[in-house]
């Protein structure tokens, strides 16, 4: 089962919560802030319809804190709602006033609704467990249901068909084709021309002006090749100084 709540837990919950109430809460046991809230109400044996907001808000915050749920936006959202309710409940009111609406009504409605969903979820879970006790013939992917002719397609069918086709397409293999960038021959000629004029040249002279990385590599390869053939020597008089390219045997070459 891959469906998990996107909750990140910085550290496993180890401490008891509820201020000495003495029960340990596992994060996995809760499927959301409403679940945690229901759990707290049940632990305290409180009526959903008449929640002591101040107490529950404090406990919720403590639970969230102790569970290390600080990063879970869903829990923080509920925590802020509870704190706001707590403040609203503290405001003085005239209870005989007709227009007064219990600020908890919305929360009560959500909790009751959520409780019903939990009820159904448990029922669904039992149904699935019962069904899992029975095996059918080996599974094969169901054959696609062919629409009766003439084709009665709607937009959603079309879109999902396109999605299926696109999902099945192999991603194209792209190669970056470049013209041969290295020109060792030209670099060799240039170095030989330079060495014909001078006994020694500097590395930077051999490169010329307006060089690209391909030119640098071409020149380097040409120098190494010429050095191998004994046409020049590569020198560095002292460390960190520019490399010097010297004609191997000035007289014979001249």
């Amino acid at each position: 089962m891959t469906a998990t709540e996107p909750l990140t837990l910085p550290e496993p919950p180890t401490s008891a919560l509820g201020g000495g109430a003495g029960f340990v809460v596992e994060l996995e046991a809760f499927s959301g802030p409403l679940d945690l809230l229901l759990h707290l109400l049940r632990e305290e044996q409180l009526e959903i319809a008449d929640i002591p907001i101040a107490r529950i808000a404090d406990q919720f915050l403590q639970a969230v804190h102790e569970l290390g749920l600080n990063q879970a936006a869903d829990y923080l959202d509920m925590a802020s709602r509870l704190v706001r309710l707590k403040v609203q409940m503290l405001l003085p009111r005239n209870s005989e006033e007709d227009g007064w609406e219990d600020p908890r009504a919305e929360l009560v409605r959500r909790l009751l609704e959520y409780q019903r969903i939990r009820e159904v979820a448990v029922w669904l879970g039992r149904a699935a467990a019962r069904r899992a006790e029975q095996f059918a013939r080996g599974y094969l992917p169901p054959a696609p249901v062919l629409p009766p002719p003439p084709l009665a397609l709607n937009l959603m069918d079309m879109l999902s068909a396109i999605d299926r086709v696109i999902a099945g397409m192999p991603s194209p293999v792209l190669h970056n084709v470049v013209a041969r960038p290295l020109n060792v021959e030209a670099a060799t000629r240039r170095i030989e021309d330079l060495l014909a004029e001078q006994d020694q040249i500097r590395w930077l002279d051999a490169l010329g002006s307006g060089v690209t990385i391909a030119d640098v590599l071409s020149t380097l390869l040409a120098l190494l090749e010429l050095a191998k053939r004994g046409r020049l020597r590569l020198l560095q008089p002292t460390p960190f100084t520019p490399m010097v390219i010297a004609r191997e045997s000035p007289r014979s070459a001249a």
Partner: protein
Amino acid sequence: MSPLAQLLEAALFSACRPITAEELASLDSEASPADVRVALEQLREHYDFNQHGVELGEMAGGYQILTRPAHAAAIERAQFTVRAPKLTAATLETLAVIAYRQPVGRLEIEEIRGVSAGGVLRSLQERGLIEVVGRSEALGRPLLYGTTPLFLELLGLGDLADLPKAEELTIALRPHRATAEGADEAAAYVEAES
């Protein structure tokens, strides 16, 4: 067993999915829907009366031959097949909301469950338990989700009417568009409780 019942048994044995009564009727041009129903009943009784290891299951609007629950443990121990993995609480809650409120959008699911639902919805869709059934007229035209026949198959339900009845729950089977209506219901429930 009648020749038709034998034919149906052969067809159901060969199939890897629930087969509807209409599909079964297409096996024999002579057979009327009533004949098929009678033959299916005969097949069911045959399995039950003679205490076969399999039974005639009825789900997702179709029929399927299934092993009896009593043999599940032994079959699984021998690793001939595996039991479907258990569904997580998040999955079940999300399925519950969708089953009762369909077509329903992500926002409404998140509102009811109090947590973000994107990941669960994606995985349910990948498993083919829910599907996009349309788009809401609301701002941004969000996608609306509904359950699939595979959902019924996974739970062994004939159709959505086999879910616990709406009267037994405070939530309505159809989505109530007006939120005020929902508040009234909850208020009425609160009064009844207190």
